[in-house]
Protein backbone atom coordinates (compact mmCIF):
# COMPACT_ATOMS: atom_id res chain seq x y z
CA UNK A 1 0.00 0.00 0.00
CA UNK A 2 1.60 3.27 -1.11
CA UNK A 3 1.73 6.21 1.27
CA UNK A 4 -0.59 9.03 0.26
CA UNK A 5 0.35 12.70 -0.01
CA UNK A 6 -2.66 13.80 2.00
CA UNK A 7 -1.88 11.41 4.84
CA UNK A 8 1.80 12.30 5.42
CA UNK A 9 3.15 15.27 7.33
CA UNK A 10 6.50 17.01 7.59
CA UNK A 11 8.60 15.14 10.14
CA UNK A 12 7.16 11.75 9.20
CA UNK A 13 9.87 9.11 9.55
CA UNK A 14 10.21 6.36 6.96
CA UNK A 15 10.96 2.79 8.07
CA UNK A 16 14.72 2.53 8.69
CA UNK A 17 16.95 0.14 6.80
CA UNK A 18 20.03 -1.78 7.89
CA UNK A 19 22.24 -3.13 5.13
CA UNK A 20 25.44 -5.07 5.01
CA UNK A 21 28.06 -4.72 2.29
CA UNK A 22 30.65 -7.44 1.81
CA UNK A 23 33.52 -7.77 -0.66
CA UNK A 24 31.28 -9.99 -2.79
CA UNK A 25 28.75 -7.14 -3.01
CA UNK A 26 31.49 -4.79 -4.22
CA UNK A 27 32.58 -7.24 -6.91
CA UNK A 28 28.98 -7.72 -8.02
CA UNK A 29 28.42 -3.96 -8.20
CA UNK A 30 31.67 -3.47 -10.14
CA UNK A 31 30.41 -5.93 -12.74
CA UNK A 32 26.91 -4.51 -12.93
CA UNK A 33 28.03 -0.87 -13.10
CA UNK A 34 31.23 -1.44 -15.11
CA UNK A 35 33.18 0.57 -12.54
CA UNK A 36 36.33 -1.48 -12.16
CA UNK A 37 38.39 1.00 -10.15
CA UNK A 38 40.70 -1.37 -8.17
CA UNK A 39 40.27 0.56 -4.90
CA UNK A 40 36.94 -1.31 -4.72
CA UNK A 41 38.50 -4.79 -4.79
CA UNK A 42 42.28 -4.65 -4.28
CA UNK A 43 43.75 -4.11 -0.78
CA UNK A 44 47.08 -3.40 -2.40
CA UNK A 45 45.82 -0.60 -4.63
CA UNK A 46 43.55 0.86 -1.92
CA UNK A 47 46.46 1.12 0.52
CA UNK A 48 48.79 2.47 -2.15
CA UNK A 49 46.48 5.49 -2.57
CA UNK A 50 46.28 6.06 1.19
CA UNK A 51 43.01 4.33 2.03
CA UNK A 52 42.83 2.09 5.12
CA UNK A 53 41.43 -0.79 3.05
CA UNK A 54 39.08 -1.51 0.14
CA UNK A 55 36.12 0.91 0.07
CA UNK A 56 32.64 0.59 -1.39
CA UNK A 57 31.78 2.45 -4.58
CA UNK A 58 30.10 5.69 -3.59
CA UNK A 59 27.42 4.85 -6.13
CA UNK A 60 26.82 1.49 -4.43
CA UNK A 61 26.27 3.23 -1.10
CA UNK A 62 24.00 5.76 -2.82
CA UNK A 63 22.08 3.06 -4.66
CA UNK A 64 21.54 0.96 -1.52
CA UNK A 65 20.60 3.95 0.63
CA UNK A 66 17.95 5.01 -1.89
CA UNK A 67 16.00 1.90 -1.01
CA UNK A 68 14.88 3.61 2.21
CA UNK A 69 12.75 5.80 -0.07
CA UNK A 70 11.70 3.32 -2.77
CA UNK A 71 10.80 0.57 -0.27
CA UNK A 72 8.46 3.06 1.38
CA UNK A 73 6.89 4.57 -1.74
CA UNK A 74 6.67 1.23 -3.57
CA UNK A 75 6.81 2.68 -7.09
CA UNK A 76 10.46 3.60 -7.77
CA UNK A 77 9.32 5.70 -10.74
CA UNK A 78 7.91 8.18 -8.21
CA UNK A 79 11.45 9.41 -7.49
CA UNK A 80 11.91 12.79 -9.22
CA UNK A 81 15.26 13.74 -7.73
CA UNK A 82 17.95 12.06 -5.68
CA UNK A 83 21.23 13.61 -4.63
CA UNK A 84 24.06 13.02 -2.17
CA UNK A 85 27.52 14.17 -1.20
CA UNK A 86 30.08 11.47 -0.55
CA UNK A 87 31.55 12.66 2.73
CA UNK A 88 33.26 9.53 4.10
CA UNK A 89 34.27 6.24 2.52
CA UNK A 90 32.64 2.98 3.60
CA UNK A 91 35.57 0.66 4.35
CA UNK A 92 34.72 -2.97 3.63
CA UNK A 93 36.99 -5.52 5.35
CA UNK A 94 37.78 -8.88 3.76
CA UNK A 95 35.66 -10.97 6.13
CA UNK A 96 32.18 -12.51 6.31
CA UNK A 97 30.67 -9.59 8.20
CA UNK A 98 31.54 -6.77 5.81
CA UNK A 99 30.36 -3.26 6.62
CA UNK A 100 27.02 -2.27 8.12
CA UNK A 101 25.09 0.70 6.84
CA UNK A 102 22.15 2.11 8.78
CA UNK A 103 19.82 4.31 6.77
CA UNK A 104 17.06 6.54 8.12
CA UNK A 105 14.88 9.10 6.36
CA UNK A 106 12.19 11.63 7.10
CA UNK A 107 9.97 14.06 5.27
CA UNK A 108 11.31 17.57 5.56
CA UNK A 109 8.95 19.42 3.25
CA UNK A 110 5.57 19.01 1.57
CA UNK A 111 5.62 20.69 -1.82
CA UNK A 112 3.21 21.37 -4.67
CA UNK A 113 2.18 18.72 -7.17
CA UNK A 114 1.95 16.05 -4.43
CA UNK A 115 5.74 16.05 -4.01
CA UNK A 116 7.62 15.61 -0.75
CA UNK A 117 11.27 16.28 0.05
CA UNK A 118 12.89 13.48 2.05
CA UNK A 119 16.17 13.85 3.96
CA UNK A 120 18.25 10.67 4.14
CA UNK A 121 20.90 9.80 6.72
CA UNK A 122 23.33 6.95 6.14
CA UNK A 123 25.59 5.92 9.03
CA UNK A 124 28.53 3.52 8.97
CA UNK A 125 30.73 2.88 12.01
CA UNK A 126 29.04 5.66 13.97
CA UNK A 127 29.63 8.35 11.34
CA UNK A 128 27.52 9.66 8.48
CA UNK A 129 28.87 8.68 5.07
CA UNK A 130 26.50 10.73 2.90
CA UNK A 131 25.99 14.48 3.22
CA UNK A 132 22.98 16.53 2.20
CA UNK A 133 21.32 13.33 0.97
CA UNK A 134 17.79 13.95 -0.16
CA UNK A 135 15.12 12.77 -2.55
CA UNK A 136 12.10 14.41 -4.11
CA UNK A 137 9.22 12.00 -4.53
CA UNK A 138 5.73 12.38 -6.01
CA UNK A 139 3.12 10.56 -3.98
CA UNK A 140 -0.38 9.34 -4.82
CA UNK A 141 -3.14 11.68 -3.59
Amino acid at each position, binding site marked *: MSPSYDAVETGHELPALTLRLTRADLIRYAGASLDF*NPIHYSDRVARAV*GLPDVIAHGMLTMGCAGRVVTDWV*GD*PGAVREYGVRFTRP*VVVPDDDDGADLHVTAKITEKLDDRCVRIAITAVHGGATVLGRASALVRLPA
Partner: protein
Amino acid sequence: MAVNTEYAGRSYPASAPYEIGLEKVREFATAIGDANPAYHDLAAARALGYPSLVAPPTFVFTVTFAATRAAIEDPGLGLDYSRVVHGEQRFAYTRPLVAGDRITVSTTLESVRSVAGNDMVTARCDVLDEAGDQVATTWSVLVARGTADGGNA
Protein backbone atom coordinates in the same frame (compact mmCIF):
# COMPACT_ATOMS: atom_id res chain seq x y z
CA MET B 1 49.07 21.71 -12.66
CA ALA B 2 45.70 23.27 -11.95
CA VAL B 3 42.66 22.74 -14.11
CA ASN B 4 41.98 25.06 -17.00
CA THR B 5 39.05 27.12 -15.70
CA GLU B 6 38.40 28.37 -19.23
CA TYR B 7 36.79 24.97 -19.85
CA ALA B 8 33.79 25.96 -17.72
CA GLY B 9 30.70 25.88 -19.94
CA ARG B 10 32.25 23.59 -22.52
CA SER B 11 29.94 20.95 -24.02
CA TYR B 12 30.83 17.63 -25.60
CA PRO B 13 29.05 15.81 -28.44
CA ALA B 14 26.29 13.36 -27.57
CA SER B 15 27.33 9.77 -26.89
CA ALA B 16 26.25 6.89 -29.11
CA PRO B 17 22.75 5.60 -28.22
CA TYR B 18 22.59 3.20 -25.28
CA GLU B 19 19.69 0.78 -25.06
CA ILE B 20 18.64 -0.03 -21.52
CA GLY B 21 18.42 -3.82 -21.40
CA LEU B 22 15.86 -5.79 -19.44
CA GLU B 23 18.41 -8.14 -17.93
CA LYS B 24 20.80 -5.26 -17.24
CA VAL B 25 18.10 -3.61 -15.12
CA ARG B 26 17.61 -6.85 -13.17
CA GLU B 27 21.38 -7.32 -12.81
CA PHE B 28 21.87 -3.77 -11.55
CA ALA B 29 18.95 -3.97 -9.12
CA THR B 30 20.35 -7.22 -7.73
CA ALA B 31 23.77 -5.58 -7.34
CA ILE B 32 22.26 -2.85 -5.12
CA GLY B 33 20.39 -5.53 -3.18
CA ASP B 34 16.99 -4.28 -4.29
CA ALA B 35 14.17 -6.78 -4.84
CA ASN B 36 11.56 -4.13 -5.74
CA PRO B 37 9.19 -5.93 -8.16
CA ALA B 38 9.22 -2.95 -10.57
CA TYR B 39 12.90 -3.77 -11.26
CA HIS B 40 12.41 -7.51 -11.75
CA ASP B 41 8.87 -8.47 -12.65
CA LEU B 42 7.39 -7.25 -15.96
CA ALA B 43 3.82 -7.77 -14.80
CA ALA B 44 4.48 -5.72 -11.66
CA ALA B 45 6.09 -2.89 -13.68
CA ARG B 46 3.16 -2.87 -16.12
CA ALA B 47 0.67 -2.83 -13.26
CA LEU B 48 2.30 0.45 -12.19
CA GLY B 49 1.76 1.82 -15.71
CA TYR B 50 5.23 1.35 -17.19
CA PRO B 51 5.90 -0.31 -20.54
CA SER B 52 8.76 -2.39 -19.11
CA LEU B 53 11.00 -2.79 -16.07
CA VAL B 54 11.87 0.47 -14.31
CA ALA B 55 15.57 1.31 -14.05
CA PRO B 56 16.61 2.18 -10.47
CA PRO B 57 17.21 5.94 -9.96
CA THR B 58 21.00 5.54 -9.85
CA PHE B 59 21.19 3.15 -12.82
CA VAL B 60 21.75 5.84 -15.44
CA PHE B 61 25.08 6.72 -13.81
CA THR B 62 26.50 3.57 -15.42
CA VAL B 63 25.80 5.29 -18.77
CA THR B 64 26.59 8.90 -17.87
CA PHE B 65 29.84 7.85 -16.17
CA ALA B 66 31.35 6.79 -19.49
CA ALA B 67 30.30 10.03 -21.21
CA THR B 68 31.56 12.17 -18.32
CA ARG B 69 34.83 10.32 -18.21
CA ALA B 70 35.49 11.09 -21.86
CA ALA B 71 34.92 14.79 -21.11
CA ILE B 72 37.01 15.03 -17.97
CA GLU B 73 39.89 13.14 -19.58
CA ASP B 74 40.09 15.89 -22.23
CA PRO B 75 43.82 16.72 -22.00
CA GLY B 76 43.07 20.44 -22.37
CA LEU B 77 41.07 20.40 -19.13
CA GLY B 78 44.15 19.35 -17.19
CA LEU B 79 42.34 17.34 -14.52
CA ASP B 80 44.53 14.62 -13.01
CA TYR B 81 42.11 11.70 -13.35
CA SER B 82 44.34 9.42 -11.28
CA ARG B 83 43.57 11.61 -8.24
CA VAL B 84 39.85 12.10 -8.88
CA VAL B 85 37.28 11.14 -6.26
CA HIS B 86 33.52 11.34 -6.61
CA GLY B 87 32.43 14.23 -4.40
CA GLU B 88 28.77 14.57 -5.15
CA GLN B 89 26.06 13.05 -7.36
CA ARG B 90 22.57 14.20 -8.23
CA PHE B 91 19.79 12.91 -10.51
CA ALA B 92 16.64 14.69 -11.71
CA TYR B 93 13.99 12.91 -13.77
CA THR B 94 11.08 14.10 -15.88
CA ARG B 95 10.06 10.43 -16.14
CA PRO B 96 11.63 7.19 -14.97
CA LEU B 97 13.86 5.36 -17.42
CA VAL B 98 12.63 1.92 -18.42
CA ALA B 99 14.09 -1.10 -20.19
CA GLY B 100 13.91 -0.55 -23.93
CA ASP B 101 14.72 3.17 -23.74
CA ARG B 102 17.45 4.19 -26.16
CA ILE B 103 19.22 7.12 -24.56
CA THR B 104 21.98 9.49 -25.54
CA VAL B 105 24.08 11.54 -23.13
CA SER B 106 25.55 15.01 -23.69
CA THR B 107 28.04 16.30 -21.15
CA THR B 108 28.62 19.94 -20.21
CA LEU B 109 31.27 21.09 -17.77
CA GLU B 110 29.09 23.41 -15.69
CA SER B 111 31.88 24.59 -13.46
CA VAL B 112 35.64 24.15 -13.37
CA ARG B 113 37.49 25.62 -10.42
CA SER B 114 40.31 25.23 -7.94
CA VAL B 115 39.35 25.45 -4.26
CA ALA B 116 41.87 25.16 -1.43
CA GLY B 117 44.32 23.25 -3.57
CA ASN B 118 41.70 20.85 -4.96
CA ASP B 119 40.50 20.93 -8.54
CA MET B 120 36.73 20.59 -8.80
CA VAL B 121 34.68 19.93 -11.89
CA THR B 122 30.89 19.78 -12.04
CA ALA B 123 29.79 17.76 -15.06
CA ARG B 124 26.15 17.91 -16.11
CA CYS B 125 24.76 15.15 -18.31
CA ASP B 126 21.60 15.72 -20.32
CA VAL B 127 19.94 12.37 -20.99
CA LEU B 128 17.62 12.27 -24.01
CA ASP B 129 15.34 9.49 -25.15
CA GLU B 130 14.88 8.33 -28.74
CA ALA B 131 12.20 10.97 -29.36
CA GLY B 132 14.71 13.65 -28.37
CA ASP B 133 12.94 14.47 -25.11
CA GLN B 134 15.09 15.18 -22.09
CA VAL B 135 14.21 12.49 -19.55
CA ALA B 136 16.94 12.96 -16.99
CA THR B 137 19.67 15.35 -15.92
CA THR B 138 22.58 14.27 -13.77
CA TRP B 139 25.29 16.26 -12.03
CA SER B 140 28.61 14.78 -10.91
CA VAL B 141 31.09 16.73 -8.83
CA LEU B 142 34.57 15.30 -9.32
CA VAL B 143 37.41 16.39 -7.08
CA ALA B 144 41.13 15.91 -7.74
CA ARG B 145 42.79 16.08 -4.36
CA GLY B 146 46.32 17.14 -3.61
CA THR B 147 46.65 14.07 -1.40
CA ALA B 148 44.74 10.81 -1.55
CA ASP B 149 43.16 10.91 1.90
CA GLY B 150 39.89 9.09 1.37
CA GLY B 151 36.67 9.53 -0.54
CA ASN B 152 34.94 7.39 -3.09
CA ALA B 153 36.40 7.31 -6.54
